[in-house]
């Protein structure tokens, strides 16, 4: 029987950086992944500017609308994945069944995981935030620097640096250019900076995993406005960039087409039960150490299945989230220009003076490359008038995505329930309800944010609260604890009750700050892999 050194489960942000760190240490790594790939749309989207494609490519509907017209929204929009990105959620209904009335999840069985649709924000949390998450600020600071150098991060030193880039300034490339629409908002802030700052409002650029210089075999951003549709030149970091690099290392083994079900500890190490997705046969592997990086909900499933009589409930946290389409009235009817990126370009941080870790974060995007018909559908007007109107307004439309921090409460939990119809014999049931004080605070802070947007010249047309889970930031299912407790993690990521099982995704985070967790997922996985005793 072969006993592998370290088995890593998953291929997303956490998994690939845990694996890379272990390989750098000379450890042999086997990575288990379901591995769905973008077979249908790979190579279909031409590497050209959005406006050129729109005006000349006769095949553009193949990728803009999708071969099965899956890019045309029907009913309530649950996620905003473009057709070339929809492979991210393929097969999840079958293999990761989930039941909930109040939670909108997005999980992935794709090669590279949810990182394939990541918005590229790289927020390095403050020391206070890290402590509240159960993480060591000094360890995470070093890990942030390592990850920033590995993946290529661009950004600037500005008014929001203290919220999101402490310690990684030296590792950053210059920021990418901001378009005319967002620049006008930034200019208004700069002209009234002291007034905004007194009100606890700060604007600036968070670090982004976007190259502004060529790096390794990747290309600097080409300002083609196509980031929602393709990964040309790998200018925006995705986990597959790391995975392709790891595949060239002789100590690395990629075990594709496998869905890990559960584990158990034996005298030899950890026995891992999995399903081969092609043959649908169950298989077993043994490893000295197991590192779960299957995402907070994915790791929770595996841990609950591995526990006798798993009727327990595990906590879950996710950022409350709303989207406010706004009109930047100063830019109505003015040309947007050609050279731009579709990604978030400017962030607003709203300080909470009473609770320094509870800042709110708003990202500003210009709406152009997602096509007009989707937004015309949302207007309370007939579509012909909507179209006429949008021709004037499109260059001034701003999407503000509003994120709130989250902590656990006894009404936010998940449990594994038997389901004889499911491929795994069970399904996850998620219950997620805000407490009254949380709900009130979210509303108060949202009003404050909408007022700030108006002061910046952006008139919110509406504010759409999204169902919990829509932000795709999940954490806290197996919280860090200094004391040994069931379903908790030691500070080094070890799952209490086991000697050789570790969890290196966001499961341990006991708090979620408003700005995205992805950069911290990578840094935390690196931190855990670095201290793992083999």
């Amino acid at each position, binding site marked *: 029987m072969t006993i592998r050194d370290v088995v890593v489960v998953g291929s997303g942000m956490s998994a690939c950086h845990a694996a890379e760190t272990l390989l750098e240490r000379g450890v042999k790594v086997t990575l288990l992944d379901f591995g769905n790939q973008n077979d249908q749309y790979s190579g279909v989207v031409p590497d050209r500017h959005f406006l050129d494609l729109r005006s000349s490519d*006769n095949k553009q509907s193949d990728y803009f*609308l999708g071969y099965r017209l899956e*890019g045309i929204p029907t009913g309530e929009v649950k996620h905003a994945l473009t057709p070339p990105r929809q492979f991210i959620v393929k097969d999840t209904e079958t293999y990761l069944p989930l039941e909930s009335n109040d939670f909108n999840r997005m999980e992935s069985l794709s090669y590279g995981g949810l990182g394939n649709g990541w918005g590229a924000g790289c927020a390095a949390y403050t020391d206070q935030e890290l402590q509240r998450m159960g993480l060591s600020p000094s360890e995470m600071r070093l890990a942030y620097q390592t990850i920033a150098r590995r993946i290529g991060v661009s950004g600037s030193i500005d008014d929001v640096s203290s919220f999101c880039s402490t310690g990684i300034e030296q590792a950053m490339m210059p920021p990418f250019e901001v378009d005319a629409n967002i620049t006008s908002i930034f200019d208004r802030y700069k002209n009234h900076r002291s007034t905004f700052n007194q009100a606890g409002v700060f604007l600036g650029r968070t670090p982004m995993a976007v190259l502004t210089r060529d790096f390794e075999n990747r290309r600097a951003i080409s300002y083609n406005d196509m980031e929602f549709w393709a990964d040309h030149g790998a200018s925006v970091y995705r986990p597959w960039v790391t995975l392709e690099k790891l595949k060239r290392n002789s100590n690395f083994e990629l075990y594709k087409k496998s869905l890990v079900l559960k584990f158990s500890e034996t005298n030899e190490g950890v026995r891992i039960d999995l399903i081969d997705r092609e043959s649908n046969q169950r298989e077993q592997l043994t490893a000295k150490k197991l590192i779960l990086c299957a995402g907070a909900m994915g790791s929770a499933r595996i841990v609950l299945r591995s526990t006798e009589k798993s009727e327990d409930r595990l906590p879950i946290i996710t950022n409350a989230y709303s989207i406010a389409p706004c009109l930047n009235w100063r830019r109505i009817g003015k040309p947007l220009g050609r050279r731009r990126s579709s990604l978030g370009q400017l962030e607003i941080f709203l300080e909470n003076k009473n609770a320094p870790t509870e800042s709110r974060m708003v990202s500003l995007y210009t709406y152009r490359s997602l096509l007009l018909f989707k937004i015309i559908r949302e207007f309370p007007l007939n579509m*012909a008038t909507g*179209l006429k109107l949008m021709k004037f307004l*499109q260059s001034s439309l701003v999407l503000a995505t509003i994120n709130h921090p989250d902590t656990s409460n006894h009404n936010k939990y998940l449990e594994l329930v038997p389901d004889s119809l499911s491929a795994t014999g069970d399904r996850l049931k998620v219950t997620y309800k805000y407490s009254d004080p949380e709900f009130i605070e979210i509303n108060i802070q949202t009003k404050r944010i909408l007022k700030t947007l108006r002061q910046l010249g952006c008139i919110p047309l509406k504010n759409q609260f999204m169902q919990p889970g829509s932000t795709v930031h999940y954490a806290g299912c197996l919280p860090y604890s200094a004391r040994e407790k069931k379903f908790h993690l030691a500070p080094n990521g070890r799952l209490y009750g086991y000697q050789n099982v570790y969890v290196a995704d966001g499961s341990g985070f006991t708090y979620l700050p408003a700005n995205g967790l992805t950069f911290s997922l990578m840094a935390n996985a690196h931190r855990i892999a670095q201290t793992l005793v083999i």
Partner: protein
Amino acid sequence: MSSNLEAQAIIFCRYLIGERPSQEIVDRYTAAIRNNFAPLNRGEKRLLRFIEILPFLVSAIDGGLAICCRESKLRQRILLLLAILETSPHYHAHFAEETFTLWRAVPMGFSIACSSVSSAFGILMVSVNKIL
């Protein structure tokens, strides 16, 4: 069925951009409806019949649906044609950004006012249709 769908595509296209669609657009619309779209319910079929007999009603009915019944499968068909047009290079100019001048703002304001009035009529039609 096919000729009905072709007639629909022509009515919707004239309504959206004021032009008769190319045969390619008509073909894509009919194929998409056949392969990817659920059939209309009885009420929606009735509204569609109105539109086929009196094409100028499409604006009012679409406006009414936008307010009363946004997820209607009839509105979904108009959206489909809009999406097909937007992703066709030949019709690209109809979706390109335009600069703003006062001379353009006046007809735009008039158009929105007319749209609001016709939507009010459309709401009435959609509501009566629901009762029937």
